């Protein structure tokens, strides 16, 4: 459904996206994970024909993003990072305009709008002006709009940015529900680890480069499984050595990396290790990210423009 070959975007010598190649299959949900400024939004802009690539090529739903941009626009839907609703119109009017823009007939538009409003539970407020909506309600409306014309591929650029955790969870339930109903291929970007987790495959992007693409499980497995953590007492150290279990000392704890957690704990118990306060830590995508890029995702503080943009966004969402 999506394929890119060496996709590159330069802005005045600064390389925002650097020779990115990947492909996404039909019905798949593919997540781009990376900090602010990693090149996620620029990639989406190129794939959605809003920005011409400096180099490389891309195909969406079988059409070249540069040479057949009209055909691409016919087949995609986008949920932007920043709000893109007409706040002075009602929820229904926003959806109606979208439907006509995408060439859906009036009658068909009406039934689809009613249906999608029901799915995101906005039917009650459909004739209210969008300005009066909460941030979460606006997002739900945008999501309903993104699915309205039944695109082959739906792009979601940080769909839950600036929302509180509870709203974020609800939004994702709607997205998944709509995806399953319409069998849409999803391409999403996020810097929330727990959201990336739900994608079929994840592409880790850092400083414009696509570092790794794999399923969340495989990415975590590549880190060497789970970590068993127990107190770093003298007895524990010697007992583990006697059992032939390799452990790394970190401050006051011992960390044992293993893929067979149960078995390893049984062996520890057999040699009489002190298991008080034992804990098992599954690797997270955060760990994967740190391991691959050498920095935590939250570390990258956005530049001052980004801070202002975020503040503006919050203001508009109110």
């Amino acid at each position, binding site marked *: 459904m999506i394929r890119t070959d060496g996709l590159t975007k330069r802005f005045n010598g600064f390389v925002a996206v650097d020779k990115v190649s990947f492909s996404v299959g039909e019905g798949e949900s593919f997540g781009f994970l990376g900090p602010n400024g990693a090149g996620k939004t620029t990639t989406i802009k190129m794939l959605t024909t809003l920005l011409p690539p400096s180099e490389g090529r891309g195909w969406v739903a079988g059409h070249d993003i540069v040479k057949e941009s009209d055909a691409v*626009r016919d087949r995609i839907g986008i949920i932007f990072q920043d709000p*893109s609703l007409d706040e*002075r*119109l009602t929820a229904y*009017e926003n959806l109606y305009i979208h439907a006509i*823009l995408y060439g859906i007939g009036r009658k068909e538009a009406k039934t689809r709008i009613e249906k999608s409003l029901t799915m995101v539970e906005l039917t009650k407020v459909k004739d209210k002006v969008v300005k009066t909506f909460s941030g979460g309600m606006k997002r739900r409306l945008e999501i309903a709009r993104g699915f309205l014309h039944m695109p082959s591929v739906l792009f979601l650029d940080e769909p839950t940015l600036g929302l509180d955790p509870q709203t974020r969870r609800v939004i994702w339930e709607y997205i998944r529900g709509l995806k399953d109903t319409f069998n849409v291929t999803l391409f999403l970007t996020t810097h929330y680890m727990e959201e990336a987790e739900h994608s079929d495959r994840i592409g880790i992007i850092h400083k414009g480069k696509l570092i790794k693409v794999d399923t969340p499980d495989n990415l975590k497995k590549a880190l060497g499984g789970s970590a068993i953590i127990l107190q770093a007492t003298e007895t524990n150290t010697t007992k583990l050595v006697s059992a032939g279990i390799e452990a790394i000392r970190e401050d006051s704890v011992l960390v044992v990396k293993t893929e067979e957690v149960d078995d390893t704990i049984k062996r520890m118990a057999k040699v009489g290790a002190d298991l008080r306060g034992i804990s098992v830590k599954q690797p997270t995508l955060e760990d994967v990210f740190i391991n691959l890029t050498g920095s935590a995702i939250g570390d990258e503080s956005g530049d001052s423009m980004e801070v202002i943009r975020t503040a503006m966004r919050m203001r508009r969402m109110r």
Partner: protein
Amino acid sequence: MKTRMYAFFRGTYIIWLRDFKRLLKDKHQLYGSFARPILWLVFLGMGLRPIFNETEGFDYVQYIFPGIVVMTLIFSGMWAGISVVWDREFGFLKEILVAPVPRTSIVAGKVAGGATQAMFQGIITLMFAPLVGVSLSVVMVCQVLGVMLIISLALSSLGLVIASRMYSYEGFGTISNFIIMPLFFLSGAIYPVHTLPKWLKLMVSVNPVTYGVDLMRSAVLGISAFSVTMDIIYIVGFGVVMGALATILFRRY
């Protein structure tokens, strides 16, 4: 080809419809359209009336009336541009840019929206005609409406050209003031221009609004400095050039 044409009309229609719906909801615009003629005709016109006796046999307020109608059209035409800048700032423009409609329909839809707004406000200003002692027959009203339409289409296109490279609302305000005011003052709308120094006269003669005011004046009062044909050619020509320019500028998005 046929589907392209369909997409063009569909896009133009829906972009116009959206602006029209917003217009109907905007009460401030409505108050403004009543306030502006009062401000210029009554506060300015009545005040300056005793000073002017060079107004071709008409009362001063009557003399400036066609110019005030055109001024309303200038402001509304610029509104077409403002709405684009506004859409860009609030993100709605992206929704249109990624939709499967050609960029030309954005220009056409916005020009149509601006012209609708201009016609709406122009008609409100026209309702002040009896108040200043200008009587219009039905035929004359139809002529005036026709004149209003071509002027507002041309000025909306100008508004879009300015807006195509403007990224902030404040910036547009500044630039459009630099353009609106000279266009208006140097058009002969509020004073006769034949006493002006030569270099200013030259500026008046290249100003498209001059021909709009002249055409409007001939439709309302029956007096004009140029021939009606020349006025129409100049305004329509200006509109076509601006429309084409706006289309080119918006294509390179």
